[in-house]
C-alpha cells in the first residue's frame, strides 16, 4: 500500500516571505505584490526556478517579499543583472521589478537594450510618476507643472510614455495594468510570463505619500468603467458603464477616436477589433491618454520572436557540435615549434 502524499493546493501564501514589508501603508505596491503572487500560483511557477531582480527605489524592495530567489541590485542596472542570469541559466524564470525613475531615468539605457535584444524577462515597471524613496522629486514620467522639492515652481520637463518608449525600443510584448485592478493585472502578468522574450508591463501605481491620487481620474472606483478600456485580442475595443463607448479609426486624422454606439449613426461595426500583433495599432493605443481617452489596459502588443538568450545558446550549441572543445589543442593553434 502506498500513501499518497497530501497535495496542498497552491496559494499566494506560498510566495510570501517572513520579511516585514516596509512600504508605506496604503502604497499601491501591496496590491501589485498580491497580483504577482497570484500570477505565480496560477502559472504553476516553482519558487526555486523563479528569480526576481530589481534596481533601487520603493518598487525595487519587491524581491525581499517574494519567497523565490531574489537579487536587489543597484540603481537602474537590473536589466544587466537579469541578462547575465538568463544567459547562464535560461531555464530560470526571471522577473524584473523597476520604477519610472529606476527604469527610465538612470536605467533608461539598459531598459532600451533589454527590450531591443528581447531577453526573456518579465519587466514590471511601477509607474507612480515620482521618486518615492528619495522623498518626492519629479521623475521622467511626472507631468509638467508638478511641484516637488526639486521643482518648486513646477516641472518644465516633458514626460515620456513608458509604453511608447518600450514599443519604440522594439519590445515584442507591451501591456499595462493598474494597482487597483488586481485580478486584471494578475492575468496580464500571467500573459507576460507565458511570452518568450522581453515582456514589458507598465503598472500605474499610487504613491500615497508623494503623489497621491495622480491616477485618480481613471482609477476612481465609480468612474473606472467609463475611464478604462481593457483590451482583449480579437474583440471589439468597447468600454463604459453601458458598454456603448468604443474606439474607432479615423482615416482622415490617422488617429483613434472615442465614439458611442447608437449616437450619430454609429454601430458596433464601426468599433475597431483589437489585434495585439499590429504594431501600428499598438503605437496608437499607447499614445491615448486620459482624460480625453480611456486608460488602455491589458495586452497592447504581443508579437513573439526568438529570444536573445535562445539565440545565444543556439550559437553555442552549434559551435559545440561543430568543434571539439580540446583545451590543450586550443593552446597549440597557429604556429608552434618543438625544442628537443
Amino acid at each position: 500500500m502506498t500513501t499518497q502524499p497530501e497535495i496542498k493546493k497552491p496559494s499566494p501564501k506560498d510566495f510570501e516571505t517572513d520579511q516585514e514589508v516596509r512600504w508605506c501603508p496604503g502604497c499601491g505596491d501591496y496590491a501589485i505584490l498580491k497580483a504577482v503572487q497570484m500570477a505565480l500560483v496560477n502559472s504553476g511557477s516553482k519558487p526555486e526556478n523563479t528569480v526576481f531582480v530589481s534596481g533601487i527605489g520603493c518598487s525595487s524592495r519587491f524581491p525581499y517579499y517574494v519567497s523565490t530567489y531574489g537579487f536587489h541590485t543597484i540603481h537602474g542596472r537590473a536589466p544587466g543583472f537579469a541578462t547575465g542570469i538568463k544567459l547562464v541559466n535560461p531555464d530560470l524564470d526571471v522577473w524584473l521589478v523597476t520604477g519610472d525613475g529606476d527604469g527610465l531615468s538612470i536605467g533608461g539605457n539598459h531598459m532600451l537594450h533589454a527590450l531591443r535584444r528581447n531577453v526573456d524577462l518579465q519587466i514590471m515597471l511601477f509607474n507612480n510618476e515620482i521618486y518615492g524613496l528619495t522623498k518626492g522629486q519629479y521623475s521622467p514620467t511626472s507631468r509638467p507643472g508638478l511641484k516637488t522639492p526639486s521643482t518648486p515652481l513646477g516641472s518644465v520637463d516633458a514626460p515620456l510614455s513608458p509604453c511608447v518608449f518600450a514599443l519604440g525600443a522594439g519590445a515584442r510584448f507591451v501591456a499595462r495594468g493598474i494597482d487597483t485592478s488586481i485580478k486584471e493585472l494578475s492575468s496580464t502578468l500571467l500573459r507576460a510570463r507565458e511570452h518568450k522574450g522581453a515582456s514589458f508591463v507598465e503598472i500605474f501605481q499610487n504613491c500615497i505619500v508623494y503623489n497621491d491620487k495622480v491616477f485618480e481620474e481613471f482609477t476612481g472606483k465609480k468612474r473606472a468603467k467609463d475611464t478604462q478600456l481593457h483590451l482583449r485580442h480579437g474583440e471589439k475595443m468597447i468600454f463604459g458603464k453601458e458598454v456603448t463607448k468604443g474606439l474607432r479609426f479615423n482615416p482622415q486624422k490617422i488617429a483613434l477616436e472615442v465614439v458611442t454606439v447608437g449616437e450619430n449613426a454609429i454601430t458596433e461595426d464601426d468599433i475597431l477589433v483589437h489585434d495585439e500583433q499590429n504594431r501600428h495599432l499598438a503605437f496608437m493605443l499607447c499614445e491615448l491618454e486620459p482624460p480625453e481617452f480611456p486608460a488602455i489596459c491589458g495586452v497592447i502588443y504581443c508579437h513573439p520572436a526568438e529570444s536573445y538568450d535562445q539565440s545565444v545558446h543556439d550559437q553555442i550549441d552549434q559551435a559545440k557540435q561543430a568543434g571539439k572543445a580540446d583545451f590543450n589543442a586550443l593552446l597549440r593553434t597557429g604556429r608552434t615549434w618543438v625544442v628537443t
Partner: protein
Amino acid sequence: MSRQTSPDVNGPDVNGPDRNGPDRKGNGVQELDSVVVRFAGDSGDGMQLTGTQFSVVTALEGSDLSTFPDFPAEIRAPVGTTFGVSAFQINFGSVEVSTAGDEPDVLVVMNPAALKVNISNLRKGGLIILDEGAFNAKNLKKAGYITNPLNDDSLSKFDVRRMDITRMTVEAVKQYGLGNKDSLRCKNMWTLGLLMWMFGRKRQPIIDSLTQKFAKVPEVARANVAALNAGHAFGETAEMSSNLRRYQINKYEESPGTYRTVNGNQSLAWGLLGGSRLAGLTLMLGSYPITPASPLLHILSGLKEFGVITFQAEDEIAAICSAIGASFAGGLGMTTSSGPGIALKTEAIGLAITTELPLIIVDIQRAGPSTGLPTKTEQSDLYQAVWGRNGDAPIVVLSVSNSTDGFEVGIEAVRLATKYMTPVMILSDGYIANASEQWKIPDINDYAPFPVKFHQDPEGFQPFLRDPDTLARVWAKPGTPGLMHRIGGIEKDYDSGHISYDAANHQRMTDVRKAKIDNIAGDIPLQDVSQGAPGGRLVVVGWGSTYGAIHQAVKRARKDGQDVAHVHLRHIWPLPRNLEELLTSYDTVIVAEMNVGQLNTLLRSQYLLNTVLMSKVSGQPFKIAEIAEEITRNLGDGK
C-alpha cells in the same frame, strides 16, 4: 637589450651591428647575440603585419624574442603625417630576451614621418634602411621637414642605406596587373624580403602564410610573394651584399617542449578559460569594447565550442552587471576593460563585494586620466584597483608581469574568486596586451582542478553562512530547491542574511569582509626574489609589465658584481605575508613603476617603509638603461 647582457660585453658598441666590429666574419656575416629591429611607416604601410611575420619566422628559427607594436590611436590618420606613424619593434637573440629593447639597432623607415618620429631612439651608429622613393617634397612637408634629411648631415651619426623601395616594388609586381595602390601595398613585403636576407631567415613560412591570406585573390598573393622575393634578391646581388651587412643570430638554448608566440591578451584569455574549466564553471563574459582590452572580448567570443558565453553589453556598467548576474546564477562572471571603463564599473564592484559573489574584473591599463592616451601604456590604475570604491570595499588584486604570465594569473584569479567568493581584479597593461613573447605551452592536465561545490543542504541554510577557515559564504544557485534567498546591496545580518540596519552588525560584517580578504595572504605563495637573494644593498621592486626591463637591468648590475636584487609582485592585494620582512632586509628599496608612485604609496602605507621611487609616465615602457642608471645612482660608490 640582451646585447648588453652578453658575457663578453666590453663597451656599448662592441657587439652592436657595426660592420667593422670584431665579430664580422670573412663572408660578410656578422654574428650577434641579439638585435633590435624597428619597422616604421605610415599606418597604411602594413608595418604591424611586416613585424608580425618577421617575428613568426624569427621564432620558428629558434631565437628568443620580444615584440612591441606601437601604433597610433587614430584608425586612419592622414597619410604621411607624424601622428599616423605606426611602428613594430622586435628584439631577438640567442640569449634571453625579455623586453622589446631600449634602442633599435636597425630602423626600417617607409616615409619621412616615420624617420622623424623614430630617429631619436635609434642607437648611435645604427643602421637605417629607408625608402628613398617616399622622400619626395610632399611627404617631407607633411612630416614637417624643412630640408631633406637625406641631403644634410642630420643623419651622419648613422649608417644610412637609401634604396628606392617604391620603384623596385612596383617593378617587381608589374606583371600581376595590380592597380597602383595595390602595387604599393606590396612595399612592406619587399622590405621584409630584404630583412629576411640580412638575417638569413627562410622565406617559406611567409610565402605559405601570404598564399593562405590572399587565397581568394591569387594575383595579390603572387604579387606579395614576388615583392618578398625581389627584396631578398636585392640583398643577394653581389654588388649589394658587399655593401650591406648580414647578421647571424644563433639559436637560443631553450628547455625542451612545444613553443609558440603569445601576447598578453591571448595568454590571459586562455588562462581565464583554463581557470573556469578547473573550477568546473561556465565562463560568462560581459564586456564593452575599449582599447586595449577589446581583444579579450574577441578571443573569448570565438571560443563558443567551450561553452563560453560572451555578451557585448550596451555599456561598461551593463557589462559588469551581467557578469555579476551570471555569478549569482552559478556561472563564473567576468568583465574586461581599461581604466575609464573600470571607473564606470565601480559601483557594481561594490555590490559584488557586499553580496560576496565571485567575479573577475580585468583592467588592461592605459595612460590616463580620462581618455588619456588610449594606445599608450601606463600602470596608473593601482589605486583604483585597491582603493577605488565607496565604503570599505576590499578585493583581491593580481598583476600580470609579461606576455605569457596571463595564463597563470588568469587561473590564480579564478581559484581565489571561487574559493573566497570575492571579486578579483587583474591588472595588465597595453604593453603586455600587445607585446608578444615566446611561450612554452603548458599542459592543462598539470594543473590541479579546484571544482566549485555549490551549497545543497536546506538545513539551517542562510545565504551568508560562512566557512570558518576561508570565511567565504556559501554559494547557492537559483534552481536549487529549498535554498531560495534574497541578496542585495543593503547590509545583511551576519546570522540570518536578512536586511539589517543594526550598527553593531555593520561593524561585524565590515570586519569579516576585510578579514576574508586579509586571510588570503595565507593562501598565496610567499614573495620570492626573482634575481639575487634576500638581504643586501639594494632591491628593485616592480609589478606588471616593468618585469622585463627591471630583470635585464638587475641582471646587468649583478654581472658587474653589484649587490642588487629584483622582487616582482604578482599579488598586489593582499600582499604576500613575508613581503615586509623581505623588503626591510635590503638597505635600499627602489620602487620602479609607470605612474607617479602608486605601489610606492601602498608599500609605504603598509610597512612604514622608506623607499626610493622611480617613476615614468611617458606612455612608453621603461628602458633597461634608465633602470640601470637608477640602480647605479642609488648605489653611490659603485660596488
